[in-house]
C-alpha cells in the first residue's frame, strides 16, 4: 500500500489505487462466449462445408470477453496511472509535448474522414484528397520545400524514406559510390539507425563544446563517398547551427545532400525555413510541431519534403490536382516505391491540417512563444542547475545535475522526484554528450504560471536533496507505484501473461 495515496488526496480515488490493477486476464471474463452478436441473417451452412480442407482452431484464442462495466472501470483505473497533458506539464526535451487541441480530435472522427476506405473511387473521396493536397502545400510553404510526401508513419520512417530518395538521386546521377552519411554525435539515435536500414555507412561528426557541428570536422570527412549530412537544427542541445549556410555550401560543393531532422522545427516554424538554409530533404514530426497527440507512443506522422531536384523519387503514390479534381498518381517510374500501405496516417493529417489552419499566417507565433517559454524557464532554473552550454538556446535547453550544489545528485533522481509533484520528468541522459543531462522543452502551450511552478519544484527538490539526499534518490514516493525495477525487467524478461500453473 502506498500510504501517500489516501482517500481525498485525488478526487474520488478507487480502492484499487492501493494495490495492483488486475490484468484483463484476471478480471473473470468469459472464455467461451463473447458479447451478444448480430444474427448472420443468411441460411447457415456447416463451416466444414464452406471451408473444405481448412484447418480450424479447436478452441478460440484464450482471451476472455470482459463485461463492459468491468472493462470500463479497468480502463478508468489504468487511465489514472498515466501522467498526461490534461493533468500537468510534460517538459520532455526533443519530444515537443504541446497541448493537443480537442477540436482536432472531434474533426478527425467525422464519418467523412474516419469511415472512408483507401480503395474507394477517387470521386468518393475528393475531400480527403483535397485535404492532403492542401496540407502538402501548407507544409511546403512552412518548410520551403518543393514537394512533400505525407506517407511516412513517424519521424524515423520519414528519415529512412528521405535517405532512400537521396540514394535514388545519386544513383540517377550515376553516382553509386556515395555510401556514407555524416551524422553529428549529438544526433537522435534514429538518424544512424535509419541510415543503417537504408544500407548507408555512418560516419560520426564531432561537435563543438556548445553542441554545434564542427565545420572543420565536416569538411575533413566530406568527399565523393558522402551521400548526405544529417542535421537537426536547432540541434539536440537547443542551439541554432550558426554555420548552417557554410555547411550547406561545402556539402553541395562536394555533391552531398543535406538532410534536416525536423524534430526541433518547433523552434523555427514560421520564423525560418529549412529549405532556405539549404536543406535538400526535410522530415517533419506532425506529432511534435503540428500538435497531433502522441497517443502514449504513436501513431505519429513523419511527412518528408524534398527540393525540386528530388521530386521524381517521392514514394508512391503522390496526390495531384487536375483542374478542380484531385487524384492519386501511381505512375512515377523513378519513385523509390511504396514505403507503407496506402497513403499515410490520414487521421493524423486531418489533425495537423486543422492545427495549421487555426494559426494560418500567424504560425510564427508558435515558435516565438516556444522559444520565449524555454528561455524564460531556463532563466528561472539558473542557479538551480548548471547549464550544459553557454550559447543561447532556443525552444529547449539542457541542464545537468553535475556540478549542482548537491554532490551525488543524479539526473535520474531529479527526474523521478519531479513525478511526485505531478510534473513529468524532462528527458534525462540525452544528448549523451552531456553527463547527467536534463533536457527541458516546455513548448508554447505552457503558461508563465506553469513554468514558475516547474522552477519552484526544481528548487524545492535541490533544497530537499541538500537536506535528505536519500529521500530524493529513492523517489518517487507519491506515484501509483514506487521506483520500478528496470534491471529485473531486462534480466528476466516477462513479456506476456501466462495462466497460473
Amino acid at each position: 500500500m502506498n500510504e501517500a495515496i489516501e482517500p481525498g488526496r485525488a478526487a474520488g480515488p478507487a480502492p484499487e489505487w492501493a494495490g495492483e490493477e488486475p490484468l484483463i486476464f484476471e478480471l473473470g471474463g468469459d472464455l467461451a462466449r463473447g458479447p451478444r452478436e448480430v444474427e448472420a441473417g443468411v441460411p447457415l451452412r456447416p463451416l466444414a462445408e464452406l471451408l473444405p480442407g481448412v484447418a480450424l482452431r479447436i478452441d478460440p484464442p484464450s482471451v476472455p470477453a470482459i463485461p463492459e462495466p468491468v472493462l470500463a472501470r479497468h480502463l478508468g483505473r489504468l487511465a489514472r496511472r498515466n501522467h498526461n497533458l490534461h493533468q500537468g506539464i510534460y517538459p520532455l526535451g526533443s519530444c515537443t509535448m504541446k497541448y493537443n487541441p480537442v477540436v482536432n480530435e472531434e474533426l478527425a472522427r467525422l464519418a467523412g474522414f474516419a469511415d472512408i476506405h483507401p480503395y474507394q473511387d477517387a470521386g468518393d473521396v475528393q475531400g480527403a484528397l483535397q485535404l492532403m493536397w492542401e496540407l502538402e502545400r501548407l507544409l511546403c510553404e512552412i518548410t520551403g520545400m518543393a514537394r512533400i510526401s505525407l506517407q511516412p508513419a513517424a519521424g524515423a520512417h520519414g528519415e529512412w524514406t528521405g535517405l532512400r530518395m537521396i540514394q535514388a538521386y545519386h544513383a540517377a546521377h550515376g553516382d553509386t559510390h556515395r555510401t556514407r552519411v555524416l551524422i553529428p554525435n549529438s544526433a537522435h539515435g534514429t538518424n544512424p539507425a535509419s541510415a543503417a536500414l537504408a544500407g548507408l555507412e555512418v560516419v560520426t561528426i564531432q561537435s563543438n563544446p556548445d553542441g554545434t557541428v564542427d565545420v572543420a570536422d565536416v569538411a575533413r570527412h566530406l568527399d565523393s563517398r558522402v551521400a548526405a549530412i544529417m542535421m537537426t537544427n536547432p540541434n539536440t542541445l537547443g542551439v541554432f547551427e550558426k554555420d548552417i549556410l557554410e555547411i550547406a555550401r561545402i556539402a553541395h560543393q562536394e555533391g552531398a545532400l543535406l538532410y534536416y531532422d525536423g524534430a526541433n522545427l518547433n523552434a523555427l516554424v514560421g520564423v525560418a525555413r529549412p529549405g532556405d538554409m539549404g536543406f535538400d530533404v526535410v522530415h517533419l514530426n506532425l506529432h511534435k510541431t503540428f500538435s497531433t497527440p502522441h497517443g502514449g507512443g504513436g501513431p505519429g506522422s513523419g511527412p518528408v519534403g524534398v527540393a525540386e531536384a528530388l521530386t521524381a523519387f517521392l514514394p508512391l503514390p503522390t496526390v495531384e490536382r487536375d483542374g478542380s479534381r484531385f487524384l492519386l498518381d501511381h505512375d512515377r517510374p523513378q519513385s523509390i516505391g511504396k514505403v507503407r500501405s496506402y497513403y499515410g496516417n490520414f487521421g493524423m493529417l486531418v489533425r495537423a491540417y486543422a492545427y495549421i489552419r487555426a494559426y494560418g499566417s500567424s504560425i510564427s507565433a508558435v515558435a516565438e512563444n516556444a522559444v520565449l517559454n524555454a528561455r524564460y524557464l531556463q532563466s528561472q532554473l539558473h542557479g538551480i542547475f548548471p547549464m550544459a552550454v553557454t550559447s543561447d538556446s532556443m525552444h529547449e535547453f539542457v541542464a545537468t545535475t553535475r556540478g549542482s550544489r548537491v554532490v551525488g545528485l543524479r539526473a535520474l533522481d531529479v527526474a523521478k522526484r519531479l513525478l511526485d509533484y505531478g510534473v513529468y520528468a524532462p528527458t534525462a541522459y540525452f544528448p549523451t554528450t552531456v553527463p547527467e543531462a536534463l533536457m527541458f522543452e516546455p513548448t508554447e502551450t505552457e503558461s508563465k504560471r506553469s513554468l514558475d511552478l516547474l522552477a519552484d519544484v526544481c528548487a524545492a527538490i535541490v533544497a530537499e536533496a541538500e537536506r535528505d539526499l536519500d529521500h530524493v534518490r529513492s523517489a518517487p514516493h507519491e506515484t501509483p507505484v514506487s521506483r520500478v525495477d528496470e534491471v529485473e525487467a531486462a534480466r528476466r524478461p516477462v513479456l506476456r501473461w501466462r495462466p497460473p500453473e
Partner: protein
Amino acid sequence: MGSTQQAVCGPALGILWATMAYLPNGADERRQMLEAIGAASVEELFRAVPERLRHPVMDLPEPLAEQDLAGELERLAARNQPLGALDSFLGAGVYRRYIPAIVRAAIARPEFYTAYTPYQAEASQGTLQTIFEFQSMICELTGLDVANASLYDGATAAAEGVMMAVAQTGRHRVVAAADLHPETLAVIRTYGRGRGVEVVTTDDVSARVGAGDACAVVALPGFLGTVAEIAPVAQAARAVGAISICCADPIACALLTPPGDLGFDIAVGDGQPLGIPPSFGGPHLGFMAVRQELMRRMPGRLVGLTHDHDGRRAYALTLQAREQHIRREKATSNICTNHALTALAATVYMARMGGAGMRRVAEISVQRAHALAARLTALDGIELADPDHPYLWEFALRVPGDAGGFATAMRHQGIVAGLPLGRFDPDRHEQLLVCCTETTTPASLDRYVEAASRAGRPVTVTA
C-alpha cells in the same frame, strides 16, 4: 488554398498572439518573461538565426476561429462518401468491422491519447499495462511466444519481419507468396532494396524456398481472400534454415489454426480489424509475434513485467539494448514512435469481444460472404474466379465485361461492389474482390444481388 482568403505572412510579433487559442500567455506575462531573460524583444531571442533567413514570405491563409475551422473541415468531410452511407463490399486489407463504443471511449481519454511513450515507468503504468495486455493477447491470437508493443501497419510489419530474417540468417533472398497483399509486397521490396535484398514471388513457396533464402513469406488469408495450405511452407523453410513468416489477418486467427500452431517463426499483420476505423488507410496498427529464440532480434518497444521497490507488480519498457536510442546504427530497427494508441484500441476491442466473440465475428463474415457468392453466381454471367480455392469472407468475382464498368454501374445504385482487380493484375480485369463482414447487413446483400442482376447484363455496362 482553394477558395480561402490568402494573406502574406510577415513578422507578426505580438499582434495576433492574444487571439490564438492555444497560447496561454498575454502581453503582460510576455513582458515579464522578456525582462527575466534580459531581452528587449522576442526577435532578439532569434539572433542566432542569420537575418536573411528570418521571416520568409509565406503564402498561408488567414487564421481561423474554432467555429470557422470546424466548418471548413466539415465541408471537406462532406465531400467524401463514408462507407456507412453506402452498401460497401470493399475489403482488400481494410475492413469495416463493428467497433464497440467502449473502444472509442477509451482512446478518447486524454490520459491515454495525450501521453508520451512511457519512458518514466512510475508515471506511465496505465499505458505500460495496456501494452503488456496487448502483447499477451497478440500471443494468444497468433499462437506465438512474444509480441512487441506495435509497429506502423501490416505492410511495414512484414518488412520488419523480413529484415529480422535477413539479420538472423545472414542471407539476402526472400521467397514470397504471389498472393501477399500487393501493398505489403511493394513495401517489402522497398525496404529490401536499400539492403541488397532480392524478393522473388511464387505460387509454390514450399517448393521454391532453398538454402540461400533468408525467409519464406506467406499470407493467411491471401489477398484474394483464399486460404492455402501453408503449414508445409513453415516446414520447408525450417528444413533449409530459413525463417518462416506468416502475414495474418487477426480475425482470421480467431477462426483458423494460428500461425504459431502451423509452425511459423514470425506472425505479422495489420490490427485494423480490431476496433480501428478505415480512416482512408491510416493510422492502422502493425503487430508482430515471434518464437522465443527471436525475441532479441525484434524491432521496437517491448513492455515487461517487473516490480517496484515495494514489491508490487509493475511494468516497464525493456530489452532496450535492441533499440535505436541505445544502439544507434547497430539497432534491430530504426523505429521509435510506434502505434500505441491504436494498439490500445485493439486491446479494448479484444477484451470486449474475447476470443470467442472474435471467432463469432469471423463466422458471421464467412456465412454472409458464402451466401452472397452463392446468390451472385446463380446470376447469368457471374461466377467465382477461383472456384477451387476455399475462401473466408472475401472472394474474387468474375463479372461480364470490365469489372470497373460493373463497379461504376453498381455505384450508381449506392453500392460499392468491391475492388476491381485489373489495377493489380491485368489478367483479372474482369474480376472484383468482394468482401462481407458483420457490418454488411442481410438487406445490403439483397440490394447487391438485385443491382447485380441488372448491372451484370452486358447491355447496362455503359458507364
